Structures are given as structure tokens and as C-alpha cells.
């Protein structure tokens, strides 16, 4: 089993606070890796280190290495826009861009000038179908995306990311802002998508992690406490803090 992303000696400071202390993490290829832990333990920061989103945080300092297919994305001269094309992000709250539904999905293609000459319609349709939104929007593709419900917008964001054919999907509590039905919808999609993509999921719902994860990274106060195949970590945790978290006494 190959590791799609390898994190070595990662230290992240924001201002004077050390958010992540020396993390070594392997994200296996073609699986769902769930990053678990109580609020404020650095889950989201860890996720944002994988698409260089920490660049956007003022006063952040990153040390260590993050390898994507063996290439260190923090090496000098790496093009972040290309990294972010290869690593999609599904954010906690959906932000549809101020344009039509159609243009939202086409956005990434236009940005990267992919398939500019071709008719994009079949491509847009494909990704909307993949995200499970096509049937709901096929008659109103030119409506502004802001007219969609929040659950639909999250699927639109998924389609927008998928349209660039990323290798990895980072999902940052992608269902936490959604109603139960929409959440189920997104979860189902992630389930399907893991056939083709490596998925890294930050979640604070243990049950969601149990349903989706093949691999688990458990973090506590900026440190990686335990990581391994989901079954082993859930059924037979090695560390005291993992046990306590799984039993619900911390977090």
C-alpha cells in the first residue's frame, strides 16, 4: 500500500502559538483517512498544511516537509496553484462563487485554461452528476449559484473541485454546517468517491469517522497520538488518550 501524502517533522506556529508539534503522518493512497481529535487540537491546521493554505494565514510559520507523490510541496519553486489543482478542498461551509451554477463548475477549468476551445457542457454535466446535483439543477444552470440551498451549494462546491480531476480531496468537516439529509448526501458521495480519490477527512463526529474511514489519525493538543488502519485504532487503541477519546471522556 502506497502513501499518497507523507508528512515529515511538520511543525506549525501561528504567531507564538505552536499549533502542530512535530507531526509524522502517512496518508494512504485511495483510502479515506479521517483526522480525529477534540476541537482546537490542530486538525484543520494539519489539513490546511496539505494544500499550502497556511500561506494565507498571517504570521504562520511552517517547518518540515509534506510530500505529495514524493514531491515536497514546501520546496522552493513549487507552484502552489498547481498543488491546489491536484489537491481539492471541500470546506466546512460552502462558498459558491458569485456567478451562475454552470460557471461555478467551469471556474477551475477557466482558471487553469483547460479545455478552453471545447464545449464544456458535457463536462459540466458529468461533474454535476458525480456530485449528485445534476437532476436538481439541470433546468436552471444559468441561475446564480447563490439561489441554491446550503446543502446543494456544498455539492456544487464538490463538483467545482472534482472538475479539475484532483488526486486528493481534503474535506474539512464538510457536513457540519448542513442539515441531516444534506449531510447524508455528502457522506454518501465521499463513500463513492474513495474508489477514485484519496480522501482526507477532518471530522469531530466519531460515528462519521467509523462509517467512512479506512485509516485514522488521532490528534491531541497538536500532537499525533496514534495513527493506523481504522479497524485497529477503533477496536484496539494502543494509547490511553485514544481510548479516552473513543469512550467519550475527552473531546
Amino acid at each position: 500500500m502506497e502513501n499518497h501524502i507523507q508528512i515529515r517533522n511538520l511543525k506549525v506556529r501561528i504567531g507564538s502559538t505552536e499549533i502542530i508539534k512535530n507531526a509524522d503522518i502517512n496518508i494512504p493512497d485511495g483510502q479515506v483517512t479521517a483526522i480525529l481529535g477534540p476541537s482546537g487540537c490542530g486538525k484543520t491546521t494539519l489539513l490546511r498544511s496539505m494544500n499550502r493554505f497556511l500561506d494565507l494565514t498571517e504570521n504562520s510559520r511552517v517547518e518540515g516537509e509534506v510530500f505529495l507523490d514524493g514531491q515536497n510541496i514546501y520546496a522552493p519553486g513549487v507552484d502552489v496553484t498547481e498543488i491546489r489543482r491536484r489537491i481539492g478542498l471541500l470546506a466546512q461551509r460552502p462558498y459558491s462563487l458569485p456567478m451562475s451554477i454552470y460557471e461555478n463548475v467551469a471556474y477551475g477549468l477557466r482558471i487553469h485554461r483547460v479545455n478552453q476551445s471545447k464545449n464544456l457542457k458535457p463536462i459540466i454535466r458529468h461533474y454535476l452528476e458525480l456530485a449528485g446535483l445534476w437532476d436538481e439543477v439541470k433546468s436552471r444552470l444559468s441561475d446564480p449559484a447563490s439561489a441554491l440551498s446550503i446543502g446543494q451549494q456544498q455539492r456544487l462546491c464538490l463538483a467545482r473541485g472534482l472538475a479539475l480531476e484532483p488526486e486528493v480531496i481534503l474535506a474539512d468537516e464538510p457536513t457540519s454546517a448542513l442539515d441531516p439529509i444534506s449531510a447524508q448526501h455528502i457522506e454518501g458521495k465521499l463513500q463513492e468517491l474513495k474508489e477514485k480519490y484519496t480522501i482526507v477527512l477532518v471530522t469531530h463526529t466519531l460515528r462519521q469517522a467509523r462509517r467512512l474511514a479506512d485509516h485514522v489519525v488521532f490528534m491531541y493538543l497538536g500532537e499525533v497520538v496514534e495513527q493506523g488502519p481504522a479497524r485497529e485504532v477503533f477496536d484496539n487503541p494502543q494509547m490511553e488518550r485514544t481510548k479516552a477519546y473513543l469512550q467519550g471522556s475527552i473531546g
Partner: protein
Amino acid sequence: MVKSPEKVEDDHAREAGKVLASRQRAERRASFEFRALSTLPAALFVVILIVLLVRAWPILQQKSLVGLLLGDVWRPSEGQFGFLPFIAGSLWVTVLAMIFAAPVSILCAIFLSEYARPTTKALIKPLIDILAAIPSVVYGLWGVLVIVPWVQQSVGPALGRWFPFLPLFNSSNPTGYSILSGALVLAVMVVPFIIAISYEVMRTVPRGYHEASLAVGATRWQTVRYVVFPRVAGGLIAGVVLGTSRAFGETMAVLMVVGNNPIIPHSIFDAAYPLTALIANNYGEMMSIPLYDSALLASALLLMLIVLLFNVFAALALRRATAREQA
């Protein structure tokens, strides 16, 4: 003697009732006072408008409105009061100033809100804000000492030489006291104002939109162009319109450098005579001339209505922009 628990509770409740009544009285009084204080400025505006209207009334009765607005001869001693040269002067100076100021301000606001590092921002933003605090007479002096000679000696001859066929750049006025000088000084004065508004408008766009765009690998410029810009366009227009209204109403700095000659200009090197300068230069003098006082107040009324129009327009643009932001 120790009070019984019931007695303690009774006393306590009675006390609370008294306090409640006095709290409600204070609340009613405060509410009345604040309402009165807030109504005052609004009432003041109406009073100024009425005063101007009353004082301008004599000339509005004797001359036709069209004749006043479109008349191009200003000879008060002969009873000729054409406002057109002044309206044209104000428009020329203001429009030219905005052509200089608007693009610079918006690009600067984009840089500050989207590109600048925190340290750069912390350095540049206060400096720009200070520009807005410089008294306008100082800008006027700077215009007289620097801009007017520069226009006279360098810009004027150069543009005249390069574009001899363009009437816009040709003039018989060799002094440098011109529309161009006025517009340059005005532009520098309104730039910090427009930057401040545009910057605040751009900062209202939630980070999530930037991130949604950056997450698919967009560059910062693409993000600004396709995601931020459509959301803030209305606010930016409002900023520019408010800047225009400010430039239109500015008096001191402009009248010091613009030449003050009541003719209809045809070139940016011609002298002009904006409405504001007309009032500031002449009110209080030669008041024995019939209708002169009334004519000046009519021009003040006109100035006020134009600026009011700009502000209403800006408010509408801003409201539309924020309404969409909340949708």
C-alpha cells in the same frame, strides 16, 4: 431582631419594583433625548435648504431657470447672470480629477486589501489616511508652488508639441493656472478618501470566498478579478461617486490653482471658474449690485442639489451592493 424569611423577600420585591420604575423612567428619557439629538442634524439640512431657497428666490422669479443654467455670460453689473461657465468649470475639473483619482484609488485599495503583507499595510494605510487630514489650503499652496509651475513649464508645452492637432491640449492660457492643475490637486485630495471607502468595502467580502477560489488553484489576481470584484463593484462605484461629490464641493485648494476666469473652457490648459470658487470669491463683495446676492445664493443652491444628487446615487449603489452581499 432577625427578620423572617418572608419579610426579607417582601422587602426585596418592593425594592425591586421601585428600581424597575426608575429604570423605565430613565430609559424613556434617554430614548427621547437621543431621538431629539439625532433629528437635529437632519432638521439643520432642511433649514439650510430653505434659507438658500428663500434668498435665491428673487432671481429665480425674475430670470428663467433655463436662462440661468444655460446662460454663458456673467456680467452682474449689467444684470447678466449665466451660470454655465461655472457649471462647466466645476464639471471639467471634477471629471478630470476623477479620471486621475478613481483608477489609482481602486488599484491601491485592491493592493492593500488583497496583496499587502500585514507589515506593509500597517505602514501604508496610516500614511494614506493622513493625506486626508491635510488642510485643503495646504494642498492649495502645494498646487501653487509645485503643480502650477510644472503644468506651465513642462506638461503644457510637451502635450501641445506632441498633440498639436488635439484642441483638448491647446490653449492660449500660458499661466499654468488651469483645469489640469486644479484636477491634479483635487485628485490627490480625494484619493485617500476613495481608497478608504474601497478598502472597507473590499474587506467585507468573507475570507471563505477567497479560499473557495484559491482552493481550486486560482491566483490572487484571478480571485480578485472573478470573485471579489463582482461582489464589491457596487461599493466601489459608491466610493467613486462619493469622491466625485467631494471633489465637486471642494473650494479652497481649487480656487487657488484653477485661474478663476468665467469662460467656458475648451482645453485642459484653459482657466476655469468652478461654482464653489464663484461663491467663495464673491460673496460679501459688490453686494450693492441688484440680484447679485440672490444669484450667488442660487448658485449655492445649485451646488448643494448636485452634491445631494451624488450622495443619493452613492447611497443607492451602496444599498444595492450590501443587499446582495446579505442575500
